[in-house]
């Protein structure tokens, strides 16, 4: 686990300051997150953990630039996020994030030529390299519909990492996979991180997954989402992972909430 330890705190790469997000539902304004703030340093793996309805996915979309906060601001390396861009690449949960009309390889090439303006030959070399890293070399010429769910997510991760974004945003990427595949994908993700040391913001509602993937866990409460706690994995109450650590996180998440109200 030492190889996966968090790096020393440096100037924040991503700064989320008092972000309030709202969306309309049935003509009514619903507050998704209420003055949420946290920072992500370069090379950190921050898991954004909360029950469904806490606005964590909405928050990730705001960081990606798909939504504008109603209040507060989001900055990346000091400049405010105003729209989507290839410096913040998202891996979604949905399998249809791969373009179905392109092969796995062409999906990566398309991302590189479109977002990075690379020439095809360069893009092909990078695509080949990243597909090898996620063990998809043999399926480079397969179309997405010919892949299993896990392979599709690996292709999406390869496509994301190939772009070398400043920060990788993952929105429950393994949420639609079976439990066994999910655990293997979490391990593979950590392997990829050890190779490339990218900065990761990982949204999940699974306590075990947050503790396994994150070097830090930011807990959000529900309705509206507020930061409950910000914990470093491997320190304090999370020094030793396992049932006790998970119980501690659960207590923090649902502190004061009766079981029947959940």
């Amino acid at each position: 686990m030492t190889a996966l330890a968090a790096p020393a705190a440096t100037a924040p790469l991503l700064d989320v300051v008092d972000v309030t997000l709202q969306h309309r539902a049935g003509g009514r304004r619903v507050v998704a997150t209420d003055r949420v703030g946290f920072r992500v340093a370069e090379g950190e793996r921050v898991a954004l953990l909360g029950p469904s309805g806490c606005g964590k996915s909405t928050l990730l979309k705001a960081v990606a630039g798909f939504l504008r906060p109603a209040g507060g601001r989001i900055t990346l390396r000091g400049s405010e996020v105003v729209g989507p861009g290839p410096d913040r690449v998202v891996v979604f949960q949905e399998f249809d994030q791969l373009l179905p009309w392109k092969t796995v390889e062409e999906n990566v090439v398309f991302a590189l030529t479109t977002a990075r303006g690379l020439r095809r030959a360069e893009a092909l070399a990078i695509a080949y390299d990243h597909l090898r890293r996620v063990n998809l070399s043999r399926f480079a010429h397969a179309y997405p519909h010919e892949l299993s769910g896990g392979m599709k997510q690996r292709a999406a991760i390869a496509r994301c990492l190939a772009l070398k974004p400043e920060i990788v945003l993952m929105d429950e990427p393994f949420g639609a996979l079976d439990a066994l595949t999910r655990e293997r994908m979490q391990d593979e993700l950590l392997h990829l991180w050890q190779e490339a040391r990218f900065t990761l913001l990982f949204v999940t509602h699974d306590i075990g997954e947050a503790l396994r993937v994150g070097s830090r866990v930011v807990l959000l409460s529900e309705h509206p989402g507020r930061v409950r706690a910000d914990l470093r994995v491997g320190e304090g109450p999370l020094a030793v992972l396992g049932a006790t650590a998970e119980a501690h996180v659960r207590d923090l998440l649902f502190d004061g909430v009766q079981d029947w109200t959940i």
Partner: protein
Amino acid sequence: MSAEQTLLDPAAPLRATAFPSPVAWLWSRGAVRKALWLALLAVAWELYARRLANPLLVPTALDTGRALVASLRDGELPARVASSLELLALGYTGGVLLAAALTFLASATRVGADLLELLTSMFNPLPALALLPLALLWFGIGSGSLVFVLVHAVLWPVALNAHAGFSSVSPTLRMVGRNYGLRGPLLALRILLPAATPHLLTGLKVGWAFAWRTLIAAELVFGVSSGQGGIGWFIYEKKSLLEMPQVFAGLIAVVLIGLAVETGIFRPLEARTVGRWGMRAPS
């Protein structure tokens, strides 16, 4: 012991799959089975026509075949078919271009979407042929009226399907495109257009089917007074002359062209796009 040996013999199952009997192989081809049915129907037709012995009502299959070959040879039928297809191409292209413009408007603005939805719900159920009397009044007897009716037949189903296709592109795919910095027309071209391909193909197919039927029917209705008619006019003219084998030959030509467009253009197009991509075409 011997049973075990045959089970373990690796060559036995291989041989069975490598050399199926020719009859089984032929039977496994859908086209062969359908051709057999076609032959059976032709024989039944021939027998019935001979028993009826009234060539004015039902000419025999052989006479029809001879008439078809003769009309093809003397160049009359090809000329009529060419005339029909030329009009069709004109009307089809016009309809598709107008549909593209309308869909673009509908995707760009909400007012455009409202307009498209209103127009398609009004005009899609209206049979194109019902506009023919009006078209004759506006454009006179001739190809102008036919093209107008064809455009109407193609425009609405194509626009309806294209609009449905663009609106049903998943939000995830749109976000993926925007994530790579694509916006506006580039997003439409590189993400929305290919993602809407199943709907677009369905629209083009339905539009073609509508246009082909409408054209033949329209030619039948006022082919009488038209100078150079198409294949519908050919059928009408031959019926007036009581040349029944030619009438049947004309009908067969209509069917064959329909089949050829479906199997020669649309099916390969689908196989190479949505089929290969695993995208289901909406029905």
